[in-house]
């Protein structure tokens, strides 16, 4: 009875290079702890500093990533997709900063006001700002660690590290009952889907006998040559895909999204509409990398899984888009739009490794930026103290908050895919990917869906600029703190400016999508770009 399988032994010896790579995450972790601690200090100035600590931590992570994450180091650590981590860390840092800025001033506002006005004594128990930003950083850290996964354990742990904090964020984002209800729904359904994912991992382990992703891939390649991948593996993969669908809010598992996004406060809604998607897609890419693609050479995932993914992609797109048509609440509408965008990105996955994955990764970036512009601008305005929720509140916003109205409109236009903006280039890449991989029906369905989408995104453009202010919108005014507005504006400007760097972004995404097989190619390509 061999006590330790060779794979586990091998893993423990070459830990050196792997540790080097997770330095950025470590920096982030330290930042999270610092935030948590400073949030509890009696000195009001320290508490006010917490968001800025979070921002500095993110910037530091970005810097260390740039230094640490060189192609040689990545290949040394035998990661399944060496450059994926670099892209995801950069993406999460940049968008993470946006989320942090968007939520400044919204957490603990009542408590801070009481303390400032001296009516209530400071009580560490009631203050949550510290944990709030800590959890944001932890969740981002989990998302980044996913890319380092070389085996299922690491994958599962990073997966959980990324999703658990989000449940808490939803609960503490806004004191009202609605966020509590959203949190409980999100948690329970999340737990159920994670359990399904875990069962899927179990079956994958059962089919290959190893937790090592590289070993798994070899055994699957073997099985592919000798009469196809076993049924246990297929069931395992299916369960894993279903588990991941919850994170992506893809069709069978999307029911929570509208309620949770509506319940959570706007900055948190922005966060949970983006980070879980990154987490879901990275896990999906890593898993499909082992089961399909490079596994059986002709870069195609097993037909059963491909068919299931195809069905999920189409249903997600369609239900997401037509669902949004009926909504009167802006956040619910954006929830449905996020469901639809997951559908678009699944098309990228289906389009196969060479062209599909980098299209999805690029679309993740465009969606993140546009999402923050729209959700951020919702976060930046309030109606006599309460969150702005229904679309009618946006009428005539141009008069009361011109900057926020512009950001909202530009974000919506970018999500629709109006050309000069960033969203168009993401969609174009997806269209080209599906066309080049002969998914003609998907191409047509996506086109029709973006036609339907044009209708409801138009409301976000028309309400602030075309509609006249109604008595109901008298109370609408920007949030006292300037930062949410600035973050929405910065990301709206991003929608306009980033297309000028489209080449570099596409290059980075393409590099990220390269699997370790063509190592030399990765090195050559990154130099040439």
């Amino acid at each position, binding site marked *: 009875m061999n006590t330790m399988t060779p794979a586990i032994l091998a893993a423990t010896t070459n830990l050196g290079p792997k540790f080097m790579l997770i330095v950025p995450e470590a920096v982030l972790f330290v930042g999270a702890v610092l935030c948590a601690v400073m949030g509890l200090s009696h000195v009001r100035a320290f508490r006010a500093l917490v968001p800025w600590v979070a921002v500095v931590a993110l910037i530091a992570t970005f810097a260390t990533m740039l230094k640490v994450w060189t192609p040689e180091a990545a290949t040394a650590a035998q990661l399944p997709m060496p450059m994926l981590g670099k892209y995801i860390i950069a993406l999460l840092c940049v968008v993470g900063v946006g989320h942090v800025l968007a939520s400044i001033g919204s957490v603990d506002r009542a408590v801070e006001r009481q303390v400032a006005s001296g009516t209530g004594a400071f009580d560490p128990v009631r203050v949550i700002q510290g944990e709030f930003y800590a959890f944001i950083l932890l969740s981002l850290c989990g998302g980044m660690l996913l890319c380092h996964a070389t085996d299922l354990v690491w994958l599962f742990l990073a997966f959980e590290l990324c999703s658990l904090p989000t449940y808490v964020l939803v609960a503490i984002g806004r004191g009202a009952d609605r966020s509590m209800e959203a949190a409980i729904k999100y948690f329970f359904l999340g737990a159920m889907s994670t359990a399904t994912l875990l069962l899927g991992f179990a079956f994958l382990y059962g089919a290959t006998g190893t937790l090592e992703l590289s070993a798994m891939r070899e055994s699957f390649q073997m099985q592919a040559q000798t009469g196809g991948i076993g049924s246990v593996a297929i069931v395992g993969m299916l369960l894993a895909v279903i588990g991941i669908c919850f994170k992506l809010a893809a069709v069978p598992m999307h029911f929570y999204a509208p309620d949770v996004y509506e319940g959570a406060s706007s900055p948190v809604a922005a966060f949970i509409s983006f980070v879980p998607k990154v987490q879901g897609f990275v896990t999906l890419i890593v898993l499909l990398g082992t089961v399909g693609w490079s596994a059986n050479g002709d870069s195609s995932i097993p037909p059963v899984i491909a068919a299931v993914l195809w069905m999920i992609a189409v249903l997600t797109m369609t239900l997401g888009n037509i669902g949004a048509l009926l909504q009167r609440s802006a956040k619910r509408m954006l929830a449905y739009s996020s469901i639809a965008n997951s559908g678009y990105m699944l098309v990228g996955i289906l389009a196969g490794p060479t062209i599909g994955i980098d299209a999805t990764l690029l679309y993740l970036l465009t969606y993140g930026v546009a999402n923050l512009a729209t959700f951020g601008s919702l976060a930046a305005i309030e109606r006599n103290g309460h969150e702005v929720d229904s679309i009618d509140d946006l009428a005539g916003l141009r008069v009361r908050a011109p900057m926020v109205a512009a950001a909202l409109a530009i974000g919506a236009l970018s999500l*629709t895919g109006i050309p000069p903006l960033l969203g168009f280039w993401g969609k174009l890449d997806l269209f*080209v990917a599906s*066309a080049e991989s002969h998914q003609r029906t998907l191409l047509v369905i996506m*086109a*029709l869906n973006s*036609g339907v989408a*044009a*209708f409801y995104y138009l409301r976000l453009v028309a309400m602030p600029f075309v509609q006249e202010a109604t008595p109901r919108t008298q109370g609408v005014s920007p949030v006292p703190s300037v930062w949410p507005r600035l973050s929405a504006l910065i990301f709206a400007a991003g929608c306009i400016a980033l297309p000028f760097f489209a080449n570099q972004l596409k290059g980075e995404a*393409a590099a990220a999508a390269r699997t370790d097989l063509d190592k030399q190619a990765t090195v050559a390509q990154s130099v040439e770009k």
Partner: protein
Amino acid sequence: MTLAVLLIVLPLAGAILCFGVSERAAKTVGLIASLAVLAVATLLAFEFPAWTTGAFWPNEEGWKLFTAFGVEFRLGTDAVGVLLIVLTAVLIPCSMLVSFSAITQRQRGFYAQFLFMESAVMLAFLARDVILFYIGYEFTLVPLFLIVAIWGGHDRRPAAIKLWVYSFVGSVISLVGFIYLAAGHATDTGTPINFGVQTLVEYGQTLPASTQWWVFLAIMGGFAVKVPFVPVHSWLPLAHGEAPTAGSVVLAGIVIKIGQYGALRFAFPMAPEGALALAPFFAALALIGILGMSLVCWVQNDVKRLVAYSSIAHMGLALLAMFAFNVVGMEGGILYMVNHGLSTAGMFMCIGIMYERYHTKDMEVVGGLMQRMPIWSVFMVFFAMASLALPGLNGFVSEFLCLLGIYTADAGMKTGFPGILGPTYAFLAALALVLGALYVLRMLQKFVFGPLREPSHGHGGHDSHGPHGHGNHAAHAIHDLNFREIVAMAPLAIACLVIGIWPKPILNVIEPCAANVVAPYVKLIERDLANRPRAAADVDAITATTAPTAAKGAIQ
């Protein structure tokens, strides 16, 4: 910064400047910017070397921004493009001039939208890359939507939303067609994806007939919404009915033209077999458009809807002539684009000026304005006659060439360009001459001639609708055209007259471009005709030596 790039960037700068200045100064800044663009456009026209060769100029490879997506910043246009650019550059300042007194609220935004639109349209006409064209073509949508939605008429919102959804879905369908073609090219030749118009045209023509059928249907289907063809036309009367004067002028004068320019530049060259196979279908739609819409025009009482329906009929004839696949028809179609832009824009300006004074578009309420505004009625009758295709004015030249083109399509092989449209299309299309006269004369009889009828609540009374109403417009006497309004309309009228009397220069310019577009069709139709049993008369005509020389002649 070559002329072409300047032409795109200048209006953008102007638009941003418009936002900067005060409300009152906005209109002057807007006008100056658009006149500057006009100057650059005329400079481009003078420097344009390929007036007679039909070649594309300036083929400059600009910024390498989107090469990873296969999109080259290639700018270039041929004679037809330059004509449309100059037309746009003339129409925008004229439409601004007309709306000085009409628009009183949010003037900064108003003039900025027009300049945004102008830069997008210029990009569309100058693009030699399919996605670059799509960017220009799609971006005209946002300013147009805002113009109709903010400064429009009474129930402007549904009209604006319908305009937005129709155009967006249409352009997405065309995009699917382009991407399908480009992706096919990339996979077949193994090269990275490339959206260059030339590469796609060459690749498209090598595709098997069945795929070309789908590609043509997708691309032409998308542009059919913008032309508009009959089943998908219902957004145009609504949009025109609600748009402000300048909005209608730009919508009729420029936006419809991009749809047709797209069909001419992309749909016909990229899928000739598909075009041939679908020609009877689209020709039948065009015919329904001509006859049906002319009759519908005849019973309209809202004069703006009447002119909108009439432009559907006119565009139907222009497209039908293009489907005749011969030089005369194509030339007639292209010239019709320019002429329709001039005469219909002029008519909308007249109607707008009248609307400014009487606040109603209903022909039953207002009439016999010749007594009140004689100079206005001269312009109105002039533009009506131009759109009526009266010989001596521009409408006639293009309508005559279109009809002649449809006829030559049936003239068998001797003209060197055998067409596939039978004589029935030709005779039914010729009815357009009479039907066109019906509704225009009815409008003139109600509007300009006959006893003077004015709205009951007196002219200039406060208008109940629209935020941009003219406030408490003092009930002053209706005055005839002032100098500004005449200056706005004079260039269009002069252009109509000059093209009508001396069309030689424009025809020489358009001919090579038309020949280039039609060149691939000669061989295809000959092959079709050869294997289809034809009347004895035509068979020996085929053996006549004229055909090959003609094809060679047309190509050089």
